[in-house]
């Protein structure tokens, strides 16, 4: 380590001060706050009382909270095991640079720059039983008997709310496509000479070489499945009969009924699940190096 002048030392401190303040205020303090208040009963006004792990017990005894964990897990599995594989498939196709691939790459990313709120309201309209495009489309192709009240049905609403986003693959596709494009062409040429089919090439060359970005994408997709809130809040508000309740919405509702201790405890459970996802996916892909 080379010796820094006193001037540079002061400079470094000054330059790091703003980020230390902001990061502490909006990341470290909140996480510490959640951890502490999750052991208290607190309505936000009167003095908090220490209740130990009672909040956590209350949560795990609440069937609505258990259902919201289940729903989040379903959501993250859909993200990791449907959305990401679809993105890989599309990326492999686009990596062959067919006509118009750049245009397709641009368009596939559109939903990622539009706010989740706008997308959710749009899909709420698409699913609407009266004027919705989905029922309209079903009628148009002669499948009018499949028309449903997509957001009011006890069994259909959860898949309806989860699945539409799974087919928006642009974000992951771009990350994976870049990784595929960086694979040296010679690998494929050699494989071609050895008589490997295209499918074999993708399986034995492409997939192993893009392992790291698949791992990253799965982590992002799964953490997204954990933290998601807007879709259910806007489209169903957790209904019908809590069938689409998710953890952040649960937290939000507890917060609004001034049960801050319970809200904090569910926040901590969410953060712990996030850590499990990251560690778990890394294990799955045997990625040791710290990424992201």
């Amino acid at each position, binding site marked *: 380590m080379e010796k820094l002048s006193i001037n540079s030392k002061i400079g470094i401190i000054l330059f790091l001060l703003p980020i230390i303040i902001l*990061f502490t205020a909006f990341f470290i303090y909140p996480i510490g706050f*959640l951890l502490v208040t999750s052991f208290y009963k607190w309505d936000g006004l009167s003095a908090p009382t220490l209740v130990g792990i009672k909040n956590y017990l209350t949560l795990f005894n609440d069937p609505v909270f258990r259902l919201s964990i289940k729903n989040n897990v379903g959501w993250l599995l859909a993200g990791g095991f449907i959305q990401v594989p679809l993105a890989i498939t599309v990326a492999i196709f686009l990596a062959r640079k067919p006509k118009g691939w750049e245009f397709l790459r641009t368009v596939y990313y559109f939903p990622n720059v539009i706010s989740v*709120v706008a997308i959710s309201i749009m899909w709420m309209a698409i699913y609407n039983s009266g004027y919705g495009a989905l029922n309209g489309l079903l009628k148009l192709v002669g499948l009018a008997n499949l028309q449903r009240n997509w957001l009011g049905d006890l069994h259909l609403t959860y898949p309806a709310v989860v699945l539409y986003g799974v087919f928006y693959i*642009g974000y992951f596709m771009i990350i994976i496509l870049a990784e595929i494009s960086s694979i040296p062409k010679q690998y494929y040429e050699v494989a071609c000479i050895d008589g490997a089919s295209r499918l074999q090439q993708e399986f034995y060359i492409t997939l192993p070489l893009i392992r790291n970005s698949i791992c990253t994408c799965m982590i992002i997709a799964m953490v997204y499945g954990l933290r998601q809130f807007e879709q259910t809040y806007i489209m169903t508000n957790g209904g019908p009969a809590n069938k689409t309740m998710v953890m952040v919405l649960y937290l939000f509702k507890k917060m609004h009924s001034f049960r801050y201790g319970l809200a904090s405890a569910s926040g901590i459970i969410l953060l712990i699940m996030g850590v499990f996802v990251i560690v778990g996916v890394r294990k799955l892909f045997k990625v040791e190096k710290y990424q992201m």
Partner: protein
Amino acid sequence: MNEMAYSRVRNNRINLYKSKTFKNAIMWIVLGFFLFYTIAPLVWLVISSLKTNGELMGAPLALPKTLQFQNYKNAFEVSGLGRLFLNSIIVSITATILNVIVSSMASYSIARYDFKGKELIFTLISAGIMVPVSALMVPVFILIKNLGLYDTKLALILTYSAMGLPLSIFIIRGFMNTIPKELEEAGVIDGCNFYQIFYKIILPLSRAGIVTAITFQFLYCWNEFIYAMLLTSSQTNRTVQVGIRFFSNQFTTDYTSMFAAITISIIPAIAGYVVFQKQIISGLTSGAVKG
């Protein structure tokens, strides 16, 4: 013998040709499906925003007889969309500037100098990328209340600047890492101090990274909903995202005006994306986001 070999090769070629067309067909079906899936809902939204409510109810997929630009006027008048737009612009621009200044300064220190605690700071900040920030609603709400900032634009500006820091640092630091040490040393010989090296040498050379960070941060601020809803309550401070959420209540019967409002809210994001596409794609691909 020769003839047989020849015909085998020829047959293989024909099979190859057939199977190639077949594979291409699969490829185009897949690509076409995703194109339709991405575009069709948006097109439907825009077309519906130009219909009367009667037309929408009668035939959800039909085209309008006459284009109802009236809906767009309604969207502005009923919901005060102009005000919401202005708020979003003020919040997004200020939060982006603050975020990028803070993260450039920090990235410069982290990327170009060695000091005690550097690893710790960087590890903590990068871990921040993966924190589901929506879990932090309670403490952030209380923090903002205690600072006396509830229902102000400053509350959103501070929150967005802070929550975007991990990603911005990751992108900008990545670019600053690639600047050769010699340029900096030349600056030192010319008598530049810590600050002059920053704004005369490092900052101009990291422009591409900074633009990428600006693009991501701006989109994040423009589209953010949870904290906008949580930390503001009055029309004077609400952003577009919270606004369009409440349109769905205001326009309980006037769906087509609601569609118009959503269309308006989407346009800046799409326009920004089309202009800054290169930065976004390079941000996602040049190792910035994927590590």
